[in-house]
């Protein structure tokens, strides 16, 4: 980027050459006898020029500093503020979006963890119920087995009792047939009992 001042420095030789050409030509025209040199060096016009310069510059200064510059500066500042505000709003929106995304991800993670917990709890509950049922059924079956065994033992006891009384009767009958007379009932009973004991062995 060439700054205007640098541009001036570059153009200076061309301007100098141009001024030599122009002033030389001007000198030729200025040799006109009616004219008395450059009007710029006529001191009689200078006070008026300087007076109006002061008046005009003062007016311009007041208009610039009181009217033009506050409006232009205000517009430029308002624009800068608007741009900065928009940038801030964009940054805020980005932060909010980030926060929302983080919140969303956290919700998903929470939901997943919750689902896993619920799943595990359900599985645990199901297996606990199964175990409880199994135990209960086992106990019931055990009870029934025990009852059945008891009944079998009672039946066997009853059967054994019948066998003994029948054996005693048979022994008494045999005794009556073989020996004649009535056998001692108590003794027969003892002997039959002993024999049954022995027979069992």
């Amino acid at each position, binding site marked *: 980027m060439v700054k*205007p*001042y640098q*541009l*001036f420095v570059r*153009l200076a030789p061309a*301007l100098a050459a*141009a*001024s030599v*050409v*122009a*002033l030389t*030509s*001007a000198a030729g*025209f*200025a040799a*006109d006898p009616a*004219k008395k*040199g*450059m*009007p*710029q*060096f*006529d001191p009689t*016009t*200078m*006070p*008026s*020029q*300087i*007076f*109006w*310069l*002061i*008046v*005009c*510059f003062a*007016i*311009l*200064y007041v*208009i*610039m*500093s009181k*009217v*033009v*510059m506050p*409006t*232009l*500066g*205000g*517009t*430029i500042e*308002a*624009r800068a503020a*608007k741009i900065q505000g928009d940038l801030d709003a964009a940054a805020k929106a980005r932060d909010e979006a980030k926060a929302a995304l983080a919140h969303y991800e956290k919700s998903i993670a929470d939901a997943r963890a919750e689902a896993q917990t619920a799943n595990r709890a359900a599985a645990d509950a199901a297996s606990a119920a199964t175990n409880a049922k199994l135990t209960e059924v086992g106990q019931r079956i055990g009870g029934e087995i025990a009852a059945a065994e008891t009944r079998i033992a009672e039946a066997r006891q009853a059967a054994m009792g019948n066998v003994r009384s029948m054996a005693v009767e048979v022994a008494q009958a045999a005794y009556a047939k073989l020996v004649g007379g009535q056998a001692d009932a108590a003794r027969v009973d003892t002997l039959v009992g002993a024999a049954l004991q022995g027979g069992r062995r």
Partner: protein
Amino acid sequence: MASPLEQFEIVDLSKPLFMIGKVPITFTNSAAFMFAAVGVASIFLIAAGSRKQLVPGRLQGLAEMLYDMVAGMIRDNVGDAGKKYFPFLFSLFIFILFGNMLGMIPYTFTFTSHIAVTFAMAFAIFIVITLIGIFKHGLHFFSLFFPHGAPLATAPILIPIEVISYLSRPVSLSVRLFANMTVGHVLLKVLAGFVVALGIVGGWVPLLVLVGITALEFLVAFLQAYIFTILCCIYLNDALHLH
């Protein structure tokens, strides 16, 4: 064929209005164009400024560009201390710019082509800047005339050089603007004279040159306003911050 210097004649448009001491003050063509510059600049900048668009159009964009340019000059060359002088420097830039640009319209008068005007501005600025420097730094201000760190033995040579260069600032500032505007307008007039003199046969060559020089003169009109303002910034910076 009128003299190329005729365009610089100061013409009285009124009888002497009043006297300052023994000097009569008249309303002249120079004064008329000063008022014209103030009027055109004010109307343009007020119209452009009143739009207040967020996205500026061409008119508003141009006005804001001028504002930003002077603000940038002060920011880069003077710094924050220069903000107080922004209204003055902006007015100065606008005054010279519109004076130069109005002068580019045929048959107008260029008030910046007069040494009285440019020197009055440059000298007033020189005095004010020097006073600012003295009020801000007291006697220390005069250290401006001796570069910091130079051997003391060089003082007898350096100090006169620095003083002369300092005192020549208003002269160079005013002569630069006056000479550029005068020479440019003389050149245009002389070339235009050649076009007429060489007629329909040979006049095309100086006419082409004239078109080119006219474009260059528009550049110069802007550039001289820019340079005048930026040099004021640099001088102001010297006064505010010394070396």
